[in-house]
């Protein structure tokens, strides 16, 4: 059943995106008896599934891995009847179908699919720096996923770009393998939570380059061998030899496909009201792709539940 999209299949609720917000919406919606499906274009669990250790999600006093946590959410959603389809939604058709009470049509890579309500929970993707060497050495020294690629840098010196929560958290994971980390942060101070900064300070094999911009990723044609950084104040340029660069400089929402239909802010985040409604009747949004400024699994869960409950009310009222 999974992956085999049924053309003209009709659902009560379709959730676009299978991260924590989407999986929670799936649990609530299918448990409430609505015919529900999640359409996921990448991996179930989203960005959360790539996080090695989650310490602030309630119910896990010793922390848990993002993969385990989201695998359990997936099991729970499937148990209540949520179907999962691996496909990419290209657009939501902008026709009179968007009128209240009508089925909405989602166009995917494999065809068309109909639903009464839509919950957009598409999350975010890592922001690129668009500097020389970044694209050339992607997968050959440049990575955005410590849990996927960290082991390849065993006993090597690497750089982590960005000292927000993601950069420091993933740096802590990478320190299991690597010899040394050179952290580079554009701002004068790291922006990660104190609890993470306190942990990283316990390591002697880390070095911080604050107030510094990454100018280029250098290499020998086959793989990355170094970085060039520029001090924002002194303008001093420094070259550092490393074997790998892990980049965590922020996220962009995966909302391009909503262009011209659903209102977004200037950065692409979906504008919602307190009930997770978008500007289009019957289209709801939840999780990190919305304008909610707190991007945490715990808040994504809450918004997914709220979106599902309100999508359920909408669905019932449109029969």
């Amino acid at each position: 059943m999974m992956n085999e999209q049924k053309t003209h299949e009709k659902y009560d609720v379709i959730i676009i995106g299978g991260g924590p917000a989407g999986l929670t919406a799936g649990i609530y919606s299918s448990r409430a008896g609505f015919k529900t499906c999640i359409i996921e274009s990448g991996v179930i669990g989203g960005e959360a599934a790539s996080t090695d250790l989650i310490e602030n999600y309630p119910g896990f006093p010793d922390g848990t891995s993002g993969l385990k946590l989201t695998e359990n959410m997936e099991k729970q959603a499937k148990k209540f009847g949520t179907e999962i389809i691996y496909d990419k939604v290209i657009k939501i058709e902008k026709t009179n179908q968007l009128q209240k009470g009508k089925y909405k049509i989602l166009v995917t890579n494999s065809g068309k699919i109909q639903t009464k309500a839509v919950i957009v929970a598409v999350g975010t993707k890592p922001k690129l720096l668009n500097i020389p060497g970044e694209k050339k050495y992607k997968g050959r020294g440049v990575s955005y996923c410590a849990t996927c690629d960290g082991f390849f840098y065993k006993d090597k010196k690497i750089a982590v770009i960005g000292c927000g929560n993601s950069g420091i958290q993933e740096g802590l994971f990478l320190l299991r393998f690597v010899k040394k980390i050179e952290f580079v942060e554009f701002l004068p101070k790291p922006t990660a939570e104190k609890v993470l900064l306190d942990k990283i300070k316990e390591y002697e094999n880390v070095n911080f380059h604050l107030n510094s911009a990454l100018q280029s990723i250098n290499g020998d044609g086959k793989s990355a061998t170094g970085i060039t950084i520029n001090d924002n104040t002194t303008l001093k340029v420094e070259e550092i030899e490393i074997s790998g660069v892990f980049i965590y400089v922020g996220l962009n929402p995966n909302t391009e496909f909503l262009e011209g239909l659903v209102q977004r802010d200037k950065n692409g985040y979906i504008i919602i009201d307190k009930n997770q409604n978008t500007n289009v009747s019957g289209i709801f949004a939840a999780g990190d792709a919305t304008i909610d400024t707190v991007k945490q699994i715990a808040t994504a869960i809450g918004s997914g539940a709220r979106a599902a409950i309100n999508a359920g009310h909408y669905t019932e009222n449109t029969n």
Partner: protein
Amino acid sequence: MSNPFPKVIVFTSPYCSWCKRVKSYLQQKRIRFTEVDVTKNSSAARDIVRRTGQQGIPVTLVNNRPVIGFDKSKLDRLLGIR
């Protein structure tokens, strides 16, 4: 006509969500494969880098031809999946 019994090896690690995606896709398509956990097998990790230049997983070898990441269309082509 594709080989009905391709030799498929998937290089993974226990933390990798995209590795899980590759494995579940192959299982769904009833493709038999051997899994190699690179965190327990350093020589396998070196072998991936030597063959592909790739410093990351998942990497799938289909009859020795590498597929980087979860590249569904390339997997389908090499495995004869329609």
